[in-house]
């Protein structure tokens, strides 16, 4: 059976700067994984390389539900089931959230459940008053994240990568986001949560934690890794990894 996401030996660079240096990562359907790692280790780059952002030269393999996506355009990847919740969601003045979701619906004419899902997610996240506002314009940090979660619910992906979805959120909002990930957990979805804090992991159950340092996954294991990191930081872990080599 195929996995929600299967990344093999993924490299990404900008000009001469090598950012991802061979990432291997598998998220099976039905599971929620976390990626942790220091600033600048390449977590957001992993998201963008998978999503197909122009800036990067990318090699290796990435499969969503068994289908190779690296040769696809950005929108094809999205329609193949990849969703990225952005660390810094882009503002689009003049285009309302409802206009955006209407265009998403049009891009997926065969998706019969779209409207129902949209209304349910909107209700769940209390998006009502944001839907006729311009996409991400004038939203607080937390509201932007909520809007991203809403779009995730609307898009109904096979693999959702949530880049620092908990950054800048107050504790109630973190619980809400975690609760939503829990609520969306299903045998048809894999989730990869990128985070700096073990905090969010307390409110949802993660199956696996991966630690990224300098463009590689240097350690994978159970949720206890998050607690270890909280204690010793990345420096201790890097030492540990180096000495075990």
């Amino acid at each position, binding site marked *: 059976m195929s996995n929600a996401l299967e990344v093999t030996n993924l490299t990404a660079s900008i000009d001469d700067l090598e950012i991802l240096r061979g990432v291997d990562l598998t998220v099976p359907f039905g599971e929620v994984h976390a990626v942790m790692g220091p600033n600048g280790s390449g977590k957001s780059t992993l998201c963008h390389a998978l*999503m197909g*952002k*122009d800036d990067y030269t990318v090699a290796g393999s990435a499969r969503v539900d068994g289908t190779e996506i690296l040769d696809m*355009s*950005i*929108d094809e*990847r*999205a*329609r193949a089931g990849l*969703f*990225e919740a*952005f660390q810094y*969601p*882009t503002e*689009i*003045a*003049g*285009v309302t959230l409802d*206009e*955006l979701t209407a*265009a*998403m619906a*049009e*891009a*997926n004419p065969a998706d019969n459940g779209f409207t129902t899902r949209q209304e349910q997610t909107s209700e769940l996240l209390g998006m009502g008053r944001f839907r006729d506002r*311009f996409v991400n314009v004038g939203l607080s940090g937390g509201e932007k994240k909520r809007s991203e979660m809403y*779009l995730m619910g609307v*898009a109904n992906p096979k693999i959702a990568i949530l880049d620092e979805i908990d950054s800048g959120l107050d504790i109630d909002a973190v619980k809400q986001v975690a609760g939503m990930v829990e609520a969306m957990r299903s045998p048809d979805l894999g989730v990869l949560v990128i985070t700096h804090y073990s905090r969010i992991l307390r409110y949802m159950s993660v199956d696996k934690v991966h630690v990224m340092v300098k463009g590689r996954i240097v350690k994978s294991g159970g949720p206890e890794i998050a607690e270890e990191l909280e204690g010793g930081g990345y420096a201790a872990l890097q030492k540990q990894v180096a000495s075990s080599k």
Partner: protein
Amino acid sequence: MTSASLIGANDAEWMTRIRSAAADRLADTPMPSEREEIWRYLDLGFDPAFDTAPTEAGSAGGADVLLDAWCGAVVDVVDGFVIGDHATVATAAEGEQKDVGDDLFSVAFDALSPGALLVDGALLGQPVFVDVQSTSDATTFPGVHVDVPKGADASVVVRMRSLTDAPAVVVPRITADVGDNARLSLTVIQDWNYQTRALGRAVIDVGRDAGLVLSEVGLGARLGRLHLDVNYRGDGSWGKIYGAYFGEEDQTLDYRYFMNHIGTNTRSDMFLKGAVEDEATSVFTGMIRIEETGRRTEAFQTNRNLVLSDGASAQSVPNLEILNNDVQCGHGSSVGPLDEDQKYYLMSRGLSSDTADRLQVRGFFAEALAEIPQTELEPHLRERILSKFLTAQEEGRL
């Protein structure tokens, strides 16, 4: 077709005097030069063909989607002639004629215009739509003068269109006086055919605590120019100036806007959005001029331009001339392609490249179009602007 009845002050003694004085000067006035700052970037190598100015109006055109949407009065101005039982004036009452300058086209207007439509208290009880039409390749001089009485709230649309594909020269002039405590919502829709050269001039005086909301939508013309002066004469007067223009093929859209702050506590805000594709060119030069008397002026200008094809270009030139220190001014201007980050974001939501671009163009213009006071027209104008982009996309011109 019904025959046009041409009524006006055409035979008034003072008007005849203005006319013949201008006619005398016309022969000695040269074509402006692109070397003059105010004509810079333009191709003026054409024959204004003033000798083709008609002596009567052609047949007025029929209704269209804008007129169908319109609730209010409609007045036709055809080939420069006011149709129907309406008063005309030169540009304002004698003695207070506005300073429109003495370039060739202003002089020619004074010499050859059959008189401007007077939109005043008698007409302004309801919103007024002035349907300015050109029916041939003749050079014409349509004029509209709006006189908003003290305390009144006026809504006027001036739409300019061609009824044929003929390459005409048109010299439109719009003048207005906004009385004390009054308000004028004036929307100009420039929709000439792509062969027509239109050299528009507008001068508006705003009285004490009076306000002007002026929106221009630039759709048509081979050369579509609007040289605008707004004089904030009255203390506490204000203006909001909006623009949305879209050039394609070999169109040149040219805006020279001057905000002249004369009274104290005056405010102006210019906000224009433009796009160009194919070989089109746009020019916006915005001048904020604050006189010594203009204490506590607040004046801002923003001009953003999308350049959608390699062959297209946009000039955006903000200027400030401040003779008083007790003021607040700001300007922003940009020229560039569609935003890459926005495109990435939209495509990451599953939208095709073309759909993402369309949504971005729509979003780009939304802020300016949303400010058009005559809201019933807005959807149609937005449609017209977007269809230019859509057609270019479909024809693979981008």
